[in-house]
């Protein structure tokens, strides 16, 4: 460890301080780094040693909390699982997540995303609730496999930063919320598919998607949100043509 070369790398960080700056601008920082150092650690070293005003979100440092998503050399990534050795020799461009308003430096506004997540009934709606004494709602491993990857979403919003249709239409429900929707619609214990599908038949629902597919490539947890959006495009189309045949049973 001790005799390893001390390497340096230049980071261009997009800064925006709402009280001082009219608009965002890049500021250059040079950090010394070691083989195993992540972008997040570099940002922390800048904050500790060079400029305490640099703002960014982080929490777990192990790709599970979804807080440190940012654009690294133009690609949406988690700063904690992106390593400087892979970005050398630099300079590396670091910017807040694409397609989101910037609150401050690398921190973006998440309010709309949270609203979308809340809107799709993100909980199991059983056909009939039963008392606790009646026991669990059972599920086979195969039934679980049908939705399991969609439950791995960590709400990091990298997929939204990768989606040009979300960039063009901020009201598009987007890949992340659709993955959560499919997590419940694909669950054998759930009976809320109809209600959730009714939310996404519109222009701002699945029909804004043009199957670019980069959301799934950006996903650090292999959730495959493109699959969630596009299988529900198929579902929405079926519903469009066959809705006359279905029994209306909501009051």
């Amino acid at each position, binding site marked *: 460890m001790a005799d390893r070369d001390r390497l340096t790398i230049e980071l261009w960080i997009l800064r925006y301080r709402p009280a001082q700056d009219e608009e965002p601008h890049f500021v250059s920082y040079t950090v010394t780094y070691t083989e195993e150092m992540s972008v997040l650690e570099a940002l922390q070293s800048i904050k500790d040693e060079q400029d305490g005003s640099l703002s960014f979100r982080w929490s777990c440092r192990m790709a599970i909390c979804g807080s440190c998503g940012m654009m690294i050399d133009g690609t949406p990534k988690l700063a904690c699982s992106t390593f400087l050795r892979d970005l050398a020799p630099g300079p590396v461009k670091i910017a807040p997540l694409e397609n989101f308003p910037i609150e401050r430096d690398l921190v973006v506004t998440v309010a709309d995303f949270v609203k979308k997540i809340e809107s799709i009934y993100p909980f199991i709606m059983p056909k009939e609730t039963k008392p606790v004494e009646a026991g669990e709602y059972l599920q086979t491993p195969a039934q679980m496999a049908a939705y399991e990857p969609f439950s791995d979403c960590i709400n990091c919003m990298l997929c939204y930063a990768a989606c*040009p249709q979300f960039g*063009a239409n901020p009201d598009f429900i987007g890949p992340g919320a659709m993955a959560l929707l499919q997590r419940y619609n694909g669950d054998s214990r759930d009976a809320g598919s109809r209600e959730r599908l*009714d*939310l996404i*038949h*519109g*222009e*701002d*629902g699945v*029909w804004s998607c*043009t199957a670019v597919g980069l959301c799934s490539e950006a996903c650090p947890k292999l959730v495959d949100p493109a699959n969630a959006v596009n299988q529900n*495009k198929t579902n*929405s*189309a079926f519903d*469009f*043509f066959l809705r006359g045949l279905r029994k209306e049973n909501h009051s």
Partner: protein
Amino acid sequence: MTRPPKRTIAPIFWLLFGAGGMLSALFGTGLVIVTGFLLPASPPSYQAAAAILHNPLAGLVALATIPLFFWHGAERLFLTLKDMRAGPRPLLALISYGAAAVGTLVTILLIFLMEFGS
């Protein structure tokens, strides 16, 4: 609870796009090789070509294939023009889907004339 959002008619175009996309993905490459390269290399006689195409079954196949190819291209053209912000959306839709609609009508007319004309 909020009212469900308004539906779009996108599924209609999407279905046509999907049918044309599937047909061309399965057969398109072979078709281009046959009509673009094999046919000019050793063209069948006019009588042979006419005999094939005057078969109502061939007419039906052409009637299904050609318009679906048009609708497939129209959907992709529309979405690409929309991505490029080439103009107001209704205009882009009119150009793209309009061209496919005209192409479909012309195809129906020509095949009708071929099968039932003199």
